C-alpha cells in the first residue's frame, strides 16, 4: 500500500522551476533514497513530502487521500522529519525526545516508557538527563533520530542526516539506523548526496537532477546500469566513452571505442551507437604490454598513463588507450608497478563490468 505519493508536483522559487515530479510513491515499509548533487531539489522534495512546504501545483497524498489546507497539521503529525543538523531544543536529552509526543498531547505516563525505549534503541539511555547542548555531533544526531522515531511515524523523512558527522560516527549510526528501520519496518525517504548511504539503506533509489527524477531503480540496477551520463557520473562511473557495435554473438557485444575493441556482456544490435560506462574499481592495471594470458578478464587494452591522482590510500590512474579510461588502484600498486605519466600499461576488465547505454533510443 502507498503511504505517501506525489502527483504532478511542481515547485517554483521566484518563477524558476526547482522541482517537477510527475509521480512518486512510497510503499509501506520501504526505504526510498533520493540522491543527487547539491542544489538538485532534494531538500525541497522532502519538505513537500513532509507537508512543510506547499507545492506551486500538484498533490501530496497520504494513504491515497489528498490533504486539504485545514488538515495539514493533522497529516504532518503522522510523519516525522530529521534534518542534517540535530536542531535540539535547549533542554535535556529525554525532554527533546519527548517533544513530538508532547505536541501530540500524549500523556506523561505513556510518554516516559516510550522515550526510554527509544533512547535504548539508539544506545543513548545514559545520556537521558544530559543537557542536549553538551552532546557531540554523533550523540546529538542519535537524539534527533530517536526524537523522530519515538513518534512511530507512518513516514520518516531524513534530510542528509549523516552529512555533518565524522566518518566513524557516521558509519556506526548508518549501521544502527539501517537495522532499526528494517526491524520496525519504517517507511522512509532518505535524501542524501552520498551514494554509499543510499546503497547501504535503500530498497529503491531515485536520482534527482535539476529538479527532475531521471532514474528510479533498485540500488543494484542503478549503480550497475545508469540511464544517462549524468546519472553514471553521479553514481561513480568514471569511464564513459561512445562507440559503435561491431557484432553480437553468444551474449557478447563487441564494441568499437576509439579504435579499441571492447567485449561487453549486454544486449545491443550490430551497427547501433552505444555508450560504454565503466567503474574505476572494475579495472586492473599491469605494467607493459601483457598479452592474453590465463585470466577471465576478456578485455585487455594497452595504453599509456596520462595522469595519476592520489586520494587517501588509493589513486586514480587515467590511461589513454584510444579514449581515457580511469582505474582505481592502491597507492602501493602505483609505486610497485611504476605507474607514472607516460608509462605503458595494460588495463584489464571483465566483459560483465561495463554497462551499455544504447543511444539510438531502443533501450
Amino acid at each position, binding site marked *: 500500500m502507498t503511504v505517501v505519493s506525489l502527483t504532478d508536483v511542481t515547485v517554483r522559487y521566484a518563477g524558476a522551476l526547482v522541482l517537477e515530479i510527475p509521480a512518486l510513491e512510497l510503499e509501506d515499509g520501504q526505504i526510498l533514497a533520493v540522491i543527487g548533487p547539491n542544489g538538485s531539489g532534494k531538500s525541497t522534495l522532502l*519538505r513537500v513530502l*513532509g507537508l*512543510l512546504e506547499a507545492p506551486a501545483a500538484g498533490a501530496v497524498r497520504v494513504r491515497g487521500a489528498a490533504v486539504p489546507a485545514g488538515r495539514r*497539521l493533522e497529516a*504532518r*503529525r503522522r*510523519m*516525522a*522529519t*530529521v*534534518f542534517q*543538523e540535530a*536542531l535540539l*531544543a*535547549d*533542554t*535535556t536529552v529525554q*525532554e527533546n525526545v519527548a*517533544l*513530538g509526543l*508532547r*505536541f*501530540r498531547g500524549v500523556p506523561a505516563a505513556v510518554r516516559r516508557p516510550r522515550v526510554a525505549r527509544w533512547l535504548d534503541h539508539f544506545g543513548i539511555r545514559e545520556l537521558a538527563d544530559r*543537557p542536549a547542548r553538551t552532546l557531540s555531533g554523533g550523540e546529538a544526531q542519535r537524539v534527533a533520530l530517536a*526524537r*523522530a522515531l519515538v*513518534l512511530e511515524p507512518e513516514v520518516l*523523512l531524513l534530510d542528509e542526516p549523516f552529512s555533518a558527522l565524522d566518518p566513524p560516527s557516521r558509519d556506526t549510526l548508518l549501521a544502527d539506523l539501517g537495522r532499526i528501520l528494517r526491524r520496525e519496518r519504517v517507511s522512509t525517504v532518505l535524501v542524501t548526496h552520498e551514494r554509499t548511504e543510499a546503497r547501504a539503506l535503500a530498497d529503491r533509489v531515485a536520482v534527482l537532477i535539476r529538479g527532475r527524477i531521471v532514474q528510479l531503480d533498485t540500488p543494484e540496477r542503478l549503480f550497475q546500469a545508469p540511464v544517462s551520463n549524468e546519472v553514471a557520473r553521479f553514481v561513480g562511473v568514471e569511464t564513459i566513452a561512445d562507440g559503435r557495435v561491431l557484432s553480437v554473438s553468444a551474449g557478447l557485444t563487441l564494441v568499437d571505442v576509439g579504435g579499441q575493441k571492447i567485449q561487453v556482456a549486454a544486449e545491443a544490435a550490430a551497427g547501433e551507437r552505444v555508450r560504454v560506462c565503466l567503474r574505476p574499481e572494475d579495472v586492473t592495471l599491469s605494467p607493459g604490454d601483457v598479452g592474453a594470458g590465463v585470466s577471465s578478464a576478456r578485455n585487455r587494452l594497452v595504453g599509456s598513463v596520462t595522469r595519476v591522482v592520489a586520494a587517501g590510500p588509493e589513486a586514480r590512474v587515467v590511461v589513454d588507450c584510444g579514449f581515457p579510461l580511469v582505474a582505481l588502484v592502491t597507492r602501493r600498486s602505483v609505486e610497485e608497478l611504476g605507474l607514472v605519466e607516460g608509462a605503458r600499461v595494460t588495463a584489464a576488465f571483465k566483459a560483465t563490468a561495463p554497462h551499455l547505454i544504447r543511444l539510438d533510443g531502443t533501450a
Partner: protein
Amino acid sequence: MALVWDGLRQALGLLAGGDADVFGITLRSLEISGAATCLSLLLGIPLGVALALGRFPGRGLAISLVNTGMGLPPVVVGLFVSILLWRSGPFGFLEWIYTPIAMVLAQLAIAAPIVTGLTLAAIQQIPDRFRLQMRGLGASRGQLLWVLLREARLPMLAAAMAGFGGVISEVGASLMVGGNIRGQTRVLTTATVLAASKGNFDVAIALSVLLLAIMFLVNAALTWIQQRRAP
C-alpha cells in the same frame, strides 16, 4: 574628601534607622518601575515576536523605529508625555499629569522599545531551520511559539533586566511628568537629584546606595533564574 565620608556615614545611619521617608520612596520606585516593566513585557514580547516572525509591508520601517526607540532619551519621552497629559493637552481631562500613572506611562515608553528590540533579536537568532524542525515534529503554531519563547528565554530575561534597569535609573522623564511631589511621585532618582541640589549629600548617598542595591538584587535574581538548569 570629608564630605564623602560624612555623607556615607550619615547614609548608613539613615538606612540602618529605617527612615520612613526613604522607605516610602524606595517602595514607590519599585512599584512604578515594576509596573512599567511588566507592561512593557506584555506589550514588547508579542510585538517583538510579531516583528521577528511576521512578514508584512512596513516591517523594515517598524524594526528601524523600534531600534531607534531603544535609545530614546528619557527627557524627550518626558516632554512628549507631558505635552499629551498637560491640563490643556489632548489627554489633559484624565488629570494624570504629576501622578504615578503618568510616570508609569513615561517609563513604559522608555522600556517597551527595549523589550521589543531585544525580543526581536532573541527570536531572530534562532535559526529558521529550528522552526522547520519543530513543524517537522508536528508542532502547531501555538506550540511552535511556545518552543521559540522557551529557546529564547535567556536573552528574553536579559530584555526584562535591561527594561527594568533602564526605567528605575532614569530621572528626566520621571521628574517632568511626575513633578517630584513628596509622598506622591518622588522616587529614588528624583529624590537623589533634589537632595544633592540642596547639599544633603547624606540623603543623596543613602538613596543612591539603595538604588544600586535594588538593581543588584533584581539582576542577581534574574541571573540566578537564567543559570538554573531547565527542568
